């Protein structure tokens, strides 16, 4: 069964970082979404993914990366460190208490840091993975590969084809 990642990153509150956050949000669809889409599609293990900002009093408090994927969290994390290192470097530059990217950018450090920022869902896992909490799946334990043996075009690719 798929594994959920609820990566929840506390954000810096200084004006400069908040302005950078607004810039990141404004440019997300044009500059970040494409590389993410390409990497996610290429992985062939990610069911769903989204990025959001939790605001309070018009200030970004947390940035969340929420995904459901197949397989092992360590391999998943390592794939995205290598594929999307600059994107994560950009995001973690806005994170409160994050080590510099040069320190985070190793297999072990990146996994440990992101693992510690993962919020456990309520309830008990039915996946025997007892530290991630409950996740419902409407497709049982089917993997992306089993559901879609050939790579499916992503929404971005479909839109590009339509254009």
């Amino acid at each position, binding site marked *: 069964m798929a594994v959920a990642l609820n990566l929840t990153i506390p954000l810096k509150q200084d004006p400069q970082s908040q302005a950078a956050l607004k810039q990141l949000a404004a440019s997300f669809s044009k500059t970040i979404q494409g590389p993410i889409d390409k990497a996610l599609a290429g992985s062939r293990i990610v069911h769903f993914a989204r990025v959001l900002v939790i605001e309070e009093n018009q200030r970004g408090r947390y940035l969340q990366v929420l995904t459901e994927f197949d397989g092992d969290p360590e391999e998943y994390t*390592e*794939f995205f460190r290598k594929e999307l290192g600059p994107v994560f470097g950009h995001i973690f530059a806005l994170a409160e208490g994050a080590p510099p990217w040069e320190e985070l950018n190793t*297999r*072990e450090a990146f996994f440990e840091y992101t693992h510690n920022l993962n919020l456990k869902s309520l309830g008990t896992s039915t996946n025997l993975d007892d530290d991630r909490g409950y996740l419902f799946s409407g497709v049982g334990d089917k993997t992306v590969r089993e559901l879609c*043996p050939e790579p499916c075009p992503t929404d971005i690719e479909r839109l590009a084809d339509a254009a």
Partner: protein
Amino acid sequence: MRIDMDNVQGLVVSMYRRPVVRHLLFRFGGGADGRTFVRRLLPEVTMADVPDTAPDPFINVGITYRGLKALDAESALLGELSSSFRKGPEPRKLGDVAGSQSAAENWWERRFRTEDVHCIVHLHVLSDEARETASAHVRELAREAGMTELVPRSDGTVLDARSLGERKLHFGYTDGISHPDIAWDDESRTPGQIDFREFLLGYGGGARSSQASRLRDGTYGAFRWIYQDVATFNRFLQTEGPRLFPDRAPADAEELLAAKLMGRWRDGTSLVLSPDRPDASMSHRNDFAYEHDDPNGHRCPFSAHVRVVNPRDQPLDAVAAASQVPQVIRRGMPYGPPLEGAEDDGRDRGIIGIFVCGDLRHQVYTLTRWMQRNDFSPVYDPNRRVQDALLANRTVPGADPQFKIPGNGGATSVTLPDFVHTKGTAFVLYPSRSTLQRLSTTSARSSTH
């Protein structure tokens, strides 16, 4: 950068040529007493600079996270340990799923829990007499330090391993042909060699290397007690070999099926190099690849053990390719009496393996996951959850026990039984000499004053 071999435990670097091994498991008493044990054992621990010709015994010591806590190790040192080590073995990730013979509740013959294991002392010697002498000495040190020996069998015997001769394992395969070629010295490293930082802790710069300075020259080990069901294995070969390969004489058909399960003939000859028969002139060769010579698995099936744990140049899926193929240093020795034939005699036999690495999560769990489910390469059918033909647990949820054997006339398949099950696992740290020294003299309490 060159490794100080005087600071690294010997079993990390060398495969000792000693046919008799005993693994003694202990639980520490109080922290001070445990530190006394480490201090007294330290001068006798075999380091990597000791020549193979040195007299018996060769002694190495691994300490679990619980053991380090019991020693009252300083928090800064504990903080440098990886989370996977601190957490201890996770049975599901090893394929030792609940409800199977390999389930953790059955480990150590239910006599104690993995959490009770604080340290394992490995004795490598040339004779039974030397083993008994060395055991008596270590046990005396342990007794004086208020430690408890954990006896993992209900008949009171401990974990003794012994060479079966000619590097043979219980299923008849020859062991020790393929090992990672590690460069222990940056200056003399040749292309294709593996960086020692994949195994030794405390060196910055490598993609996976730990920055843990207090652990420098140490490494992790997954200690695994694996039962091999020789009777089931032999019965499987006798029944299915002639059925699958009817053109061959029964004995030859059995041998071919054994080779298809492993990916090598039992003498070690690679199926890629010699698909029809073992060839003594090739039995030690390791210079083969899959992508060009066997892309369809007609020689070596995709789920053959050696092809799963070392896919060489076979294409990998994107996620597996990003992680790279994990490599571990294998130190293992069979235990229990040999068994001929297909009738079980009820005796315990198998292999006690130590898988040495710098990253348990990547190097051990990735391999065990690949064995339980072959899904890391496009060569595997995405609609079938096939497993390592020899060493997987067939009880893993969703596992497909069919072993597909591709051939020129189409694929044949056979239903795989369980050939092995796990009887115990512990994750240990093999501290360097300097870390052992530190552990023996410094406690969390003393380091805060």
